[in-house]
C-alpha cells in the first residue's frame, strides 16, 4: 500500500468535480489538489448531457424569474437561499466557461444564443447544439490541463472514506490498472461522483453511475437528503434508454399518443398550439409529463412494442434544417440506434429514469454535516432541485456548486493539520476487507448479475413514477434480503490487473445501499410532491412534509429517516400552474 497526500481531494472528474478542482487551484494555488476518478475524466457522464445549461443573460429575463421557475418546478421543496445563490452565480459561471473556450451556439451577431426549456418561463438555456454536456466536460477537462498543480489519479476506484477524529481525512482506493490498494490522505474531500440511475433497470444513465459517492458518504455517517425524488425523463428511446433531449420539444417537437393526439392537453398542461409555448404542453416539467404518460398508458392510448409501451415524439414538422442545426445529435442517435430518421419518421419514446434530485446532504457551500467532507453536482443535494429538477439546471448546478464546494473545501483544508497515523490503520483494515471479502474469496453462490437484476426489478416496481406504501414495504424487505445475499457472492476473477468484476461487485454494494435509502425515504413520505407520487397519498401535504428527508445509516445497517425544514425566503408554497 502506497500513501499519497494532498490537501483537497476531489472524487469524480465530471462537470462538478473538474469545476471544483479548478476552483481550488485558482483560489488557493498553494494547496495540493488532486482529482481521483474511476474513469478518465472525459468519460464522466456529464458528457451525455444534451440540451443545455440555464443562466439568466438576456434582457427581459430576471434572476427572480429563474428562481421562481426553479422553485415552483421543484414543488416548493427547494431551499430558496440556495436557489437564490444559484441563479445569481449562474451567469458568471457560464461566462467563465465561455472564456475557457466552450463552443456555445451563437446568435448571428456573435452573442450567446439561448433556447426555451421545460418548465422555464423565459428562454435562458445556453446550448452547444445538442451536445452541451460533452462540450462543457471537454472544455473543463482541457482547461484543467493548464494547471500543473492539479494532480490526477485516473482509473482509481474509491472504496472507503477515511474518517478520524470526527472529520473526513482521505480515501482508500484501488488503482484499477494494477489492482494495488492505495491511500490518499486529504484535509478535505469533495464527492462529485454523480447520480445513481443504474439502481433502476431502464435509465439514461451511463454504466458508471452507481451512486458511489452517495454510498461512501452514507457509510461514513453523512445523511442522504431527499432520496425519494427520482426524475423520469419523458423521452427516452425504448430498449437502450438513450435520452432524446428536451431540446427536441423546446424546438417544437410534439408528444403524440397512438391516435396522433397531443395528449398532454388532457393533463392540465395547457392547450396545443402549433409553436412551442413556454411552461406549457410539451414544455411542461418532466415529472408532470412522465406522469401523464402513465395515465395515458392506463387508458390504453399508448403504443406497444417489444420493449413495452411508448408514445411518439414528432419532429417532422421542424424540417431537416432545424433538426440538423439545433438537434444533430438527436438525428444521429435515432439513425444509429433506432434506425429511424426523425426528419421523416416519428420517434418512439417512453419515460426513463434520468436524474436524482436527492443526494449527499450539503449546505449552501457544499459542506456535508461531516466536517471535511463536501459534495457537489448530482451526487449532492443542496438543494435547489426540490422535488423535481427543471431541465438545464443541472449542468449549471455542477458549475455553481462545484466552484462553491471547491472554494469552501480549500478554505477548510488550509486551516487543518496533516492527518494522523490512525487513518492509516483504518486503511489497512480496508485493504484486508477487499482482499478477504472479494479478491481472495472463493465459494459463494450468487451472481452479480442476478442480484443486480433483482434489485432493478424491485426498484422499478416499487419506486417508479407512481408508488404505494405496500409495494415500498415489500421492496424494503427485498432489498434487505439482497444485502444479505450479497455476502454470498461468487466471484470468478481473482486477479489484480484491471479486475472489472471486483469493481462491479463494489458498485453493486453501493447501489444496494442507495436503493435502500430511496425506498425507505419514499416509504416515509406519505404525500405526493413533484416526482414522488403516492397513489395512497395523492395530495401534497405541506403541514407534514414541507421538509427534506434525511436518510442516515442506522446501527443495524438499515436507513433511519429524519426530516429537516425547507428554507423559504420569498416564495411561499403555492400551486404549480402550467399552461395558463
Amino acid at each position, binding site marked *: 500500500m502506497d500513501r499519497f497526500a494532498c490537501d483537497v481531494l476531489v472524487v469524480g472528474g465530471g462537470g462538478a468535480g473538474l469545476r471544483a478542482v479548478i476552483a481550488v487551484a485558482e483560489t488557493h494555488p498553494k494547496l495540493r489538489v488532486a482529482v481521483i476518478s474511476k474513469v478518465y475524466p472525459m468519460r464522466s457522464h456529464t458528457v451525455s448531457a444534451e440540451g443545455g445549461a440555464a443562466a439568466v443573460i438576456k434582457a427581459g429575463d430576471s434572476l427572480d424569474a429563474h428562481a421562481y421557475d426553479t422553485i415552483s418546478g421543484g414543488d416548493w421543496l427547494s431551499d430558496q437561499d440556495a436557489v437564490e445563490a444559484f441563479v445569481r452565480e449562474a451567469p458568471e459561471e457560464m461566462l467563465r466557461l465561455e472564456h475557457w473556450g466552450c463552443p456555445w451556439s451563437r446568435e448571428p451577431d456573435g452573442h450567446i444564443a439561448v433556447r426555451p426549456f421545460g418548465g422555464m418561463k423565459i428562454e435562458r438555456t445556453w446550448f452547444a447544439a445538442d451536445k452541451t454536456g460533452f462540450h462543457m466536460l471537454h472544455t473543463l477537462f482541457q482547461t484543467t490541463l493548464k494547471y500543473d498543480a492539479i494532480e490526477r489519479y485516473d482509473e482509481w476506484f474509491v472504496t472507503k472514506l477515511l474518517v478520524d477524529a470526527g472529520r473526513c481525512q482521505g480515501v482508500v482506493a484501488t488503482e484499477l*490498472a*494494477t*489492482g*494495488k490498494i492505495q491511500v490518499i490522505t486529504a484535509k478535505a474531500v469533495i464527492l462529485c461522483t454523480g447520480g445513481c440511475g443504474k439502481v433502476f433497470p431502464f435509465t439514461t444513465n451511463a454504466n458508471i453511475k452507481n451512486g458511489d459517492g452517495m454510498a461512501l458518504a452514507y457509510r461514513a455517517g453523512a445523511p442522504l437528503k431527499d432520496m425519494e425524488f427520482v426524475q423520469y425523463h419523458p423521452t427516452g428511446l425504448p430498449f437502450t434508454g438513450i435520452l432524446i433531449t428536451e431540446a427536441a420539444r423546446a424546438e417544437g417537437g410534439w408528444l403524440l399518443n397512438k391516435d396522433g393526439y397531443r395528449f398532454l392537453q388532457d393533463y392540465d398542461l395547457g392547450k396545443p398550439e402549433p409553436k412551442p409555448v413556454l411552461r406549457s404542453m410539451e414544455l411542461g416539467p418532466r415529472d408532470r409529463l412522465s406522469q401523464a404518460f402513465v395515465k395515458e398508458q392506463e387508458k390504453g392510448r399508448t403504443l406497444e412494442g417489444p420493449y413495452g409501451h411508448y408514445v411518439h415524439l414528432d419532429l417532422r414538422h421542424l424540417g431537416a434544417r432545424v433538426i440538423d442545426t439545433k438537434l444533430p445529435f438527436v438525428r444521429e442517435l435515432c439513425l444509429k440506434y433506432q434506425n429511424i430518421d426523425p426528419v421523416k419518421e416519428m420517434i418512439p419514446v417512453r419515460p426513463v429514469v434520468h436524474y436524482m434530485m436527492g443526494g449527499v446532504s450539503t449546505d449552501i457551500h457544499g459542506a456535508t454535516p461531516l466536517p471535511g467532507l463536501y459534495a457537489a453536482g448530482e451526487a449532492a443535494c443542496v438543494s435547489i432541485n426540490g422535488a423535481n429538477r427543471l431541465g438545464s439546471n443541472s449542468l449549471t448546478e455542477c458549475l455553481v456548486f462545484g466552484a462553491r464546494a471547491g472554494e469552501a473545501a480549500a478554505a477548510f483544508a488550509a486551516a487543518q493539520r496533516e492527518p494522523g497515523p490512525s487513518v492509516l490503520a483504518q486503511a489497512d483494515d480496508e485493504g484486508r476487507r477487499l482482499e478477504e471479502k472479494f479478491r481472495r474469496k472463493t465459494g459463494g453462490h450468487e451472481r452479480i448479475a442476478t442480484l443486480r437484476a433483482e434489485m432493478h426489478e424491485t426498484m422499478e416496481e416499487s419506486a417508479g413514477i407512481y408508488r404505494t406504501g405496500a409495494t415500498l414495504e415489500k421492496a424494503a424487505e427485498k432489498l434487505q434480503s439482497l444485502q444479505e445475499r450479497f455476502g454470498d457472492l461468487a466471484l470468478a476473477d481473482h486477479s*489484480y*490487473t484491471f479486475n472489472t468484476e471486483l469493481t462491479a461487485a463494489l458498485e453493486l454494494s453501493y447501489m444496494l445501499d442507495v436503493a435502500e435509502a430511496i425506498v425507505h425515504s419514499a416509504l416515509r413520505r406519505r404525500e405526493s410532491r413533484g416526482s414522488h407520487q403516492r397513489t395512497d397519498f395523492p395530495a401534497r401535504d405541506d403541514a407534514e412534509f414541507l421538509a427534506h428527508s434525511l436518510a442516515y445509516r442506522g446501527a443495524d445497517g438499515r436507513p433511519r429517516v429524519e426530516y429537516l425544514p425547507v428554507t423559504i425566503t420569498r416564495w411561499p408554497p403555492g400551486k404549480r400552474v402550467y399552461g395558463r
Partner: protein
Amino acid sequence: MSAEAHYTPYHPRWYRRRVSVWWWLQNRAYAGFVLRELTSVFVAFFAGVTLWQLRTLAQGPDAYARFLACLGTPLFVALHAVAFLFVLFHSITWFNLAPKAVVVRLSGKRVPDWVVVGLNYAAWLVLSGAVALIVLRGR
C-alpha cells in the same frame, strides 16, 4: 518469448505487439496507401525520361531519333503504360485529398469539398488539353 517472464503483483505487465514489416499488406486501406506512395517512383521515372529527352534534344537530330526509337520498344511502352496508370492514381488521390489540406473560405463559409475537388479536375482537363494542343500543333 516475453522479456518479462513473470508477473509481479501490482506491476503492470503490458503486452506490446511489434508492428510487422508487412503491416501494409494487412488491410486494403494500408495497401492502397503504400501503392499511392509508390506512384512517386513513376513520377521520378518520367522526370528522368524527360531529362533524357532534353539531353538527346541538345545532342542533335540523330540522338533524338534514337531516343524516339527507344521509346517504341515494348519494354518502354510497357513501362510507360504502367507509369501512366500509377500517375493517374496519383492524380486522382491528389485531387480527392486536396480539400483536406486546403480549406477555402468565401465570406466566412467553407467552400464544400466537392467544389474544391471539382475545380481541381477542371484545371486538370484544361491543362491537359492545352498541353496536347501545344505539343501536337508543332507537327
